[in-house]
Each structure stands twice: as C-alpha cells, then as structure tokens.
C-alpha cells in the first residue's frame, strides 16, 4: 500500500505542475450561475480528461461523488480512474469514488480525471517522476522539469546519441521501460569553469566575481574591490585575472583593473600601468606585475588576490 500511495503522491505532484499553467489560463471563471429551468444555483466545474482537455460541467448540488466527476469526464471503467480536485492554490486533493466532496467548501473549480490503474515512470535529471499516461509532450516535460528558458531537455537513448526534445515532440513512455531525460544549458559562455578550490575560496571570502570567457581566454573579474584609502582617485575597482590554460598548475601572470586608476593628488598613472587591454567588452588597465614563483596545489586565486592587493598598496608613479 505504501508504494501505491507514494506513486499516487508523485503522480499528483507532477500533475500539479502541469495544471498550474492551465490554472492560469482558466482563472477567474464563474462558479455559480443560475439554472434557467429550475431557478436554482448550479455548480460549474471544469473537468479535464487524460489529454488535459477541460470541459465545463454543471451540478445542481455542490456536493458530488468522485464517481460522478469521473463519469462526467467520460472515464470508463469508473473504478480504474481517479478524480483529482485542483484547489485554488494549485494543490491537489484525491476524491474517492464514493466520497461526497463539497466543491464549494474548498473553492474547487477544476478537477482532473486520470486512469489510476497504471502509471509510467521516468527520470528528469535525478528526479524520479511518474506520468499517468503513456504519451507525454516535450512541452509538458519542460514544465515538469521547471526548465529555465535557456535550458534544453534531452532524451537518453541507450547506445546512441541523446536526442534533443522540442516542445512539439511526443514521447511514448511505454516504449522502453524507464525513460530518462537530462536537462542541459543551451549555451555556456561563462559561469563555473573555475577549479573547485577557487570557487570555494571566492565564495567563502565573500568576493563578488564573474567568470568571463572571450574566445579561447578565460578570465575572472573580482567586482568592486575596495582600494587603499585615499590612494587613488577611485575608492573601488574591478580586477581581472586572466587564467591560462593549465591553470591552476600553470600560473597566471599580470592583472588588469577597470576603471583606469590614477594616483590621488597627482593624477599620475602608477608605474608599468600604461598599457590598455581589451577583454570581455571592456578596456582594462594592465598592471605589469610578474612573479613566476608558483606552487601548484598550494597557490591559487588567493595568491593572486594577495599579489593584487600588495601591488595596489605599493603602487607609485
């Protein structure tokens, strides 16, 4: 029984997300118009079949049985279907076949009817999911995966290359047992191509940083690094460190600063800082400071940051 409950829960969980979108489209529908013939209030409910086609149904009584809802949606045989009430907040509630359910009491406007006798399991990344039908569209899968717009979904096909899923693709989950889908960022130009030790260091020390790639070059920009008090005509600057291929076994060389720094008072450019360098759509002031002492495994961005700070503190015209 536990397994069945778990299956149902996960099924509801999935369906919830799908219907959340639909809920948006269906919002603000009227609930209780009058019956023209009887003059009584009727209770209108939108019921979706397995294909997520919603149709309006009216009941004289706000209290309906689960089986009535299934019958209304054409679910046959009734005892192999389940009615799922969609609550106003998007949550789901299972309605048992012979349960008298007060639609009004919970403010239910929509109900989903699906076959309950089987479901199809699959994975999106590491999440185990189920879907109560054999067929699923790429659009629905994307919704289930909560994919941001710049991500694509790929279907893993054993022994072959993965297949990219478009919104209009229909995948048969019954085809080959468990299906697996993997999300992949559409394009990657910047982000986390940084060795793990440096990621930990920068995040742990509260630096705001960005990894920027331009062509074959990778650079890290430390944002708004505070400058020594009163030394420059600016109080903070961005610092660029270009990371050579082979880093962190290979040492970085110079560093770069934007905006261009001049010494306070005199307005002079610090020594060996006259060359401009274009990178990542910005113009940087090159600080030609060299130190080829580098200990792989020990030195990293923390070494470079210390070198930068020393250079900034000691700079003279």
């Amino acid at each position, binding site marked *: 029984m536990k397994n069945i409950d778990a299956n149902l829960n996960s099924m509801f969980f999935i369906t919830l997300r799908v219907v959340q979108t639909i809920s948006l489209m269906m919002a603000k529908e009227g609930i209780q118009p009058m019956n023209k013939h009887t003059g009584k209030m009727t209770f209108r409910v939108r019921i979706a079949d397995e294909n997520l086609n919603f149709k309006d149904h009216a009941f004289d009584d706000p209290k309906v049985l689960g089986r009535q809802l299934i019958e209304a949606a054409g679910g046959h045989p009734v005892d192999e279907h389940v009615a799922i009430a969609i609550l106003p907040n998007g949550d789901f509630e299972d309605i048992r076949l012979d349960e008298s359910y007060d639609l009004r009491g919970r403010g239910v406007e929509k109900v989903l009817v699906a076959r309950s006798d089987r479901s199809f399991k699959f994975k999106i990344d590491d999440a185990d999911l189920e879907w109560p039908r054999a067929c699923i569209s790429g659009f629905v899968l994307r919704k289930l995966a909560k994919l941001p717009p710049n991500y694509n979904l790929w279907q893993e096909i054993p022994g072959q290359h993965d297949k990219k899923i478009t919104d209009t693709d229909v995948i048969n989950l019954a085809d080959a047992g468990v299906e697996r889908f993997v999300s992949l960022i559409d394009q990657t130009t910047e982000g*986390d191509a940084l060795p793990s030790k440096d990621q930990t260091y920068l995040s742990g020390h509260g630096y705001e940083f960005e990894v920027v790639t331009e062509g074959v070059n990778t650079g890290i920009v430390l944002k708004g690094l505070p400058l020594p008090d009163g030394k420059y005509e600016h109080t903070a600057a961005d610092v660029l460190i270009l990371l050579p*291929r082979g880093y962190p076994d290979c040492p970085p060389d110079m560093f770069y600063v934007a905006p261009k720094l001049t010494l306070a008072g005199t307005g002079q450019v610090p020594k060996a800082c006259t060359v401009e360098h274009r990178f990542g759509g910005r113009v940087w002031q090159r600080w030609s400071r060299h130190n080829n002492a580098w200990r792989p495994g020990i030195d990293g961005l923390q070494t470079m940051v210390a070198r930068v700070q020393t250079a900034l503190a000691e700079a003279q015209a």
Partner: protein
Amino acid sequence: MRASDLILLGPHRSQIRSLLTAGAGSERSAYMLFGIADIEADPWTNQPRRRLVSHRFHAIGDDDLISASARHVTWQTDGFMRLLNEAKANGLIPALVHTHPKGHAKFSEQDNRNEAELARTAALKGMPGLISVVIAGNGDIAARIWAQADKAEGLGRILHVGPRLQISGLKGTPADFLDRQVRLFGKEATRQLSGFRCGVAGGGATGSALLPLLLRLGVQEAVQFDKDIIDETNLNRLHGGRRSDVDAKLPKTAIHTRTVEDSGLGMTLVSVDAWAGHPATWDALKACDVIFCCTDDHAGRLFLNRFARFYGIPVIDVGLAMQRRTGAAYDLFARVSTLVPGHPCLLCGGYLDPRRAREESMRRNDPDAYDRLKEEAYVLGEGDPSPAVVTFTTEAATMAVNEWLAGVTGLAGEAGMLPTRIRRFHARDERRPFVEPRPDCPCCNQAATLGRGDVYPFLDMVT
C-alpha cells in the same frame, strides 16, 4: 547500460588485499567509491563506453561488524547510506567489497541476494549503479555492477594500475608472428601486451620510433595524437618519413598510419588530429590503457600529468635534452617517467615548466597576444630549435617502451616500473633521481584527485 570496464589503482588494490589479512581466514567487507570516465565514442569501436576508476576505499569499522566466518560476513549497513549520499553529492559510483578467503573470486548465491537488496536502495537514491568487488584468498579479484536492482553485469576487464600493470579478463591467443616473444615472456604476458590499448601523444622523433615498437610487440589497438606536418628538418629522425612526404606536406600521423598499414600486423591505429589536451582528444585519451607522452611541449605534458591522476590511466613520459656544452663536451639526457599512483609527478620532479606551458598554450591559442607579449619581452620565446639526433630519440623511445614491458611482464623484478630513469648518453650511465612529492600536490599527492574521473571543469583546471 554502456559497456563498462574497471580501472583498479594500486593503493586501492592494496587496501582490498588488506581485508584478507584483517579477516585472518574470516570474510571481511568494505565500501569503495569509483569515479566515472564516460567515453562518448570509443576510438576503435565508435561506441559509447564507461570506465569506472577506483577513487577511495572506506573501511567498515569493527563496531559495524556483526559476525563473520570463512563463509559469511554480516555487517550493519548504516554506513552504506552515508556512502550513497557521498557518491550522489560528488557524481561517484558506490561499491561493496568483500573477501572469499577460502573460496574463489566468484559471487555466491548469498552475495546475489544481499547485493540485489543494496542495489535496490542505491537505485532509489539515484545511483547509476552499484559495483561489487570480491577478492579470493589467492588474490584474484572479480567485479560486477548492478546497473539495475535485479541484474548484475560482470566487469570482466580490469586494468590494474601501479608500478606493475595488468589487465585481467583478457581472452585470445597471441598472433603467430609473436612466437619469439612468447618464447621469452610466455603466452600470458604476450596476451597482456597485445591487449593494452595504447595512446601515443606526439608523432615526432620519439613518437615515430615508439609506435613501430608497439606494433612489433603485438599491440592491436593504438591511437596517435598529433597536428604537425612533416618538414625537411624532421627527416633526420622521423621514422617512416620520406622526402616525398615533405613535398606532399603530409601530416605526421599519415606517415605513421602508412607504416602500420604496410606492416600488415593487425594493429588498428586511430589518428586524432589535435595536440594532446585539446578537447577533441579527451574521449580517446580516456579510452587508453597506457599513454606514451612523446610531445616536446610543456603544455601537453602538464595536461597529461594531471590526466594520469584523475583517470588512473598510466602515462609514460619521455623527455630529451641535448646540448653541446663547450667545444668538446656534450650534455645528452633522455628521461623516462612513469605516472602511476605512488610515483611523484612531473611538476614535483621539476621536469616541466608551468611558465613555458602557459606560453606554449598562448602561442597556439592566441598567437596575437603571444606576439605582443613577446615584443615586450614578457615571454621567454621559443628560441632556436633544439638539437635532435635520431639515435638518442630512438633510444629514449625504446627506454619508454621497455619501462612499460617492465610494468607488464616484471622483467626487471616485482617492483615493476621505476618512477624516473635518466640516461646520460655522454656519461654512458643511468641515474634514478629521488623525488619527494610536494605535500598536497594535486597531480600526485592529493587523495581527492586520485581516480576522480569526470569532473567539471575537465580535470578541475582551465582547459
């Protein structure tokens, strides 16, 4: 499930063996974690392939051991969930290890039942599989993977990597032309040599000498990495090179392919038209059982130095230095270093220069920036071409292959390959420099990098 094989690294093999001693006749168990090396397309079959690289050994504490005899071991499995969590968090595959001190390296019915249950839990936790390793009292090891909770697949092929190299589970008989070799090394060692998938990074002087040696030793599958075109000045040392190849501007790889094809000795040689380290080479490198590093550049060496650590694939590095010191004196060195667990890396040995590696990468990938810095004298520059003479380059290649033979056959003793040998042609002697790995060196002395397999960014470095 993709076809899988296992790479078992020396330190982990020792830890597995230590369970036999600890049990003193009773069964014992432990856990392990394996890194994943996924190959999109194997260079020889073009099929996807997955290799599992031993990464870490987790002993099961005495407190968790409930009972043990020569026929069973029972332990408390709380640690298993911690193992699964660690595996999941780091993209690793969990493993069970146990001993059969009196039996064979085969899985019993009892093993099948217990493991199926643990495999089920592993699958629920989203693991791509659960590996199981059993070691018999005679040291034989067998492994399998539960990719599904109800079915285990044998991992018949195991590459054992340390100063000694061995592939277990190889089949087939050595080719007839290897008769004289079989008379020296025997059938099994010759089968081993034929079964290694060999990578040769660099098709210059040493690479061109080394590849035909592998061919004559019976290697069946090889892959070469090079991007160079032959030129006039290569003809003094490039084996297989012809004057007409210079006129035709042939890639060096095409010359070596011709040599291999003309021999008719059954080697399948795949060429990758890129420098070792370029993303186009990653897949093929991961598919190798040994890689001979015959490049003369620091960038490629730096890459393979780290690669050997992360993937547990042995790299045998060859380097040469020749110069005329004074009017009559020469310095003529050939160095062979073997990068396997327990041996210091090229960085710790000081055999590669990270600054030169940086400059070489820049020269290849961003020549404009390189030229600008060169004008400002911020880079060392290439200088004049190094001197090179065929007898020394060829001997260096032979040294490298002989070191591999020592690893596979034990011809120089049970200790197998030496960390580094330096032959001084001018002094007619050989040195074995002692190198101490630096503390926390990521390429030879950090537990976290050993057998780590696929990570992002690749090798946890800027590529």
